C-alpha cells in the first residue's frame, strides 16, 4: 500500500472500496474501557497533532474531553480560501473521516457526533451517501454552518450548535469542559480524524514512519490542488509535488490567509495545510492588501481590535500599495491586534501583515519611491 495515496485516493471510495483499500477498524481491540485508553495511547505514540492549524497533540485533547455523554464535533468547514484539503478528503475519502470520527467518539465516550460543513458545500452529497452506507455506533448528524470565515472557529462552532449563533464565544471555558449545550465537547478537524483512523488502521509505528500531510498548493504552480507530502518536506518539495513552478516564485504564503510570508524556500513544513506561491511578477503588498480587506470584511464584529483594527490595517496596506507612507501607522497598529480578540482572527491578520512588511521590504521602498513595483496580484 503506497502511503502517499492512502489519505487521498484518485477516485471517491465508497464503503466497499474504502474497506478494500484501508481495511476495517479493529473495534474488538478497543471495545472495552481499557480500549479507550489504548486508543488515546496510540494517538500519542503516533505523535498525532491537530490538522486544523493549531498543531495541538490530539491525545491530550482526547483525554481532556473524556466524560459521560460528551459530544464529538468534526470540523469540515474550511473557511480559508487557500485551503481545500478538508473538502478533498470529504469528497474522496469520506469513510476515512467517519471511521476517525467514530474512533474519537469511542475514545472520549461520546454519545453524539456532529459533522460540520459549510451550508451548500459541494461535499454534502458525498457525506450523505457515505453516512447512508454505514451503521455507526454513535449516530452522526450533519450540520450546515453559515458560510463565513470565522464561523468555523472552534468556539463559534460550539456556539452555533448550541444557540444558532455562529460567532466566536471567546477563550473560556474550553469546549472540553463546557461545549455544545453545556456538555464536554471535542472539536477536531476532519483531516485530524482521518489521520486518527490511519493511526489505528496502520498502527502508530507504521503511521509515524510514513506520515503524510495534505497540503493545498496554489499560485504559480503547474498543477494547483491538494497534494500529499511527507511531514517535514521542504517548501521546494511541496511546490514540486504540485507540478513545479510556472515561473520563478519570489515568496510563499504558508498557512492560508492568516499565515506567514517567507521568501526562503529551503524552509520545511510540518502540519501546514496551505501554501500559496507568489510569482515573481506579482506584487506581494497588493496581494496582502486584498487578503487583509477580505479578513476585515469577514470579522464577526464583536471585538474592538478586530472591528476597527482590521479595516485600519487593510486601509494602511491599500495606501502603501498606492505609494502613501503608512509604515509608521502599521508599526503602531499591527502589534495592537494580537491577543486582544475573542478568537485568533485578528492575530492571523497581524501575522500576515507583519510578515508581508518583512518579506516585501524592498517592494515597500519601491512603492514609496513612486508607485508600484510589479503587477497587481489576483486573490484566490
Amino acid at each position, binding site marked *: 500500500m503506497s502511503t502517499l495515496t492512502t489519505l487521498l485516493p484518485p477516485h471517491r471510495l465508497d464503503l466497499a472500496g474504502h474497506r478494500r483499500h484501508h481495511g476495517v477498524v479493529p473495534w474488538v481491540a478497543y471495545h472495552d474501557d481499557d480500549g479507550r485508553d489504548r486508543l488515546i495511547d496510540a494517538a500519542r505514540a503516533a505523535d498525532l497533532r491537530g490538522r486544523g492549524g493549531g498543531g495541538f497533540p490530539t491525545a491530550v485533547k482526547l483525554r481532556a474531553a473524556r466524560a459521560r455523554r460528551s459530544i464529538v464535533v468534526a470540523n469540515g468547514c474550511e473557511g480559508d480560501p487557500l485551503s481545500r484539503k478538508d473538502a478533498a478528503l470529504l469528497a474522496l475519502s469520506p469513510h476515512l473521516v467517519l471511521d476517525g470520527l467514530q474512533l474519537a467518539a469511542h475514545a472520549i465516550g461520546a454519545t453524539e457526533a456532529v459533522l460540520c460543513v459549510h451550508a451548500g458545500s459541494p461535499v454534502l452529497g458525498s457525506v450523505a451517501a457515505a453516512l447512508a452506507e454505514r451503521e455507526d455506533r454513535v449516530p452522526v448528524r450533519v450540520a450546515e454552518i453559515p458560510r463565513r470565515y470565522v464561523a468555523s472557529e472552534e468556539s463559534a462552532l460550539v456556539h452555533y450548535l448550541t444557540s444558532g449563533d455562529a460567532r466566536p*464565544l*471567546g477563550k473560556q471555558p474550553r469546549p472540553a469542559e463546557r461545549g455544545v449545550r453545556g456538555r464536554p465537547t471535542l472539536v477536531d478537524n476532519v483531516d485530524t480524524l482521518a489521520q486518527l483512523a490511519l493511526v489505528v488502521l496502520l498502527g502508530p509505528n507504521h503511521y509515524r514512519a510514513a506520515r503524510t500531510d495534505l497540503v493545498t498548493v496554489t499560485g504559480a504552480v503547474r498543477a494547483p490542488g491538494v497534494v500529499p507530502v511527507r511531514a517535514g518536506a521542504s517548501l521546494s518539495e511541496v511546490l514540486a509535488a504540485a507540478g513545479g513552478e510556472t515561473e520563478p516564485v519570489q515568496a510563499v504564503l504558508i498557512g492560508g490567509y492568516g499565515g506567514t510570508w517567507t521568501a526562503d524556500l529551503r524552509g520545511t513544513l510540518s502540519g501546514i495545510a496551505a501554501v500559496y506561491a507568489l510569482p515573481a511578477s506579482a506584487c506581494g503588498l497588493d496581494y496582502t492588501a486584498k487578503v487583509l480587506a477580505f479578513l476585515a470584511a469577514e470579522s464577526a464584529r464583536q*471585538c*474592538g*481590535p478586530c472591528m*476597527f*483594527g482590521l479595516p485600519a490595517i487593510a486601509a494602511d496596506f491599500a495606501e502603501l500599495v498606492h505609494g502613501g507612507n503608512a509604515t509608521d501607522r502599521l508599526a503602531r497598529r499591527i502589534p495592537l491586534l494580537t491577543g*486582544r*480578540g475573542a478568537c485568533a482572527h485578528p492575530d492571523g491578520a497581524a501575522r500576515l501583515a507583519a510578515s508581508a512588511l518583512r518579506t516585501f521590504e524592498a517592494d515597500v521602498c519601491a512603492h514609496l519611491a513612486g508607485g508600484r513595483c510589479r503587477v497587481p496580484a489576483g486573490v484566490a
Partner: protein
Amino acid sequence: MKLSVDPIGCRAHGLCADLLPERIRLDEWGYPVLASGPVPPGLVADARRAAAACPVLALRMRKS
C-alpha cells in the same frame, strides 16, 4: 491578582483607563490595552474599583 478584559463585552467606554492609568491605556479606537503581568499589590484596590466601575462589567480581576 490579574486584570483581564472580556473582548466581546467591552464597549470602549474608557472608564478603566481613567481610573487605572498605571495599568491601562486606550488604543486609538478607545479599547483598553492592559499592562502585562500581575497587578502590583499597591494597585489592587484601585484595580478592583476600576473593574467594578466598568459599565458592562467587561473588566475583571482574577487570582493569577
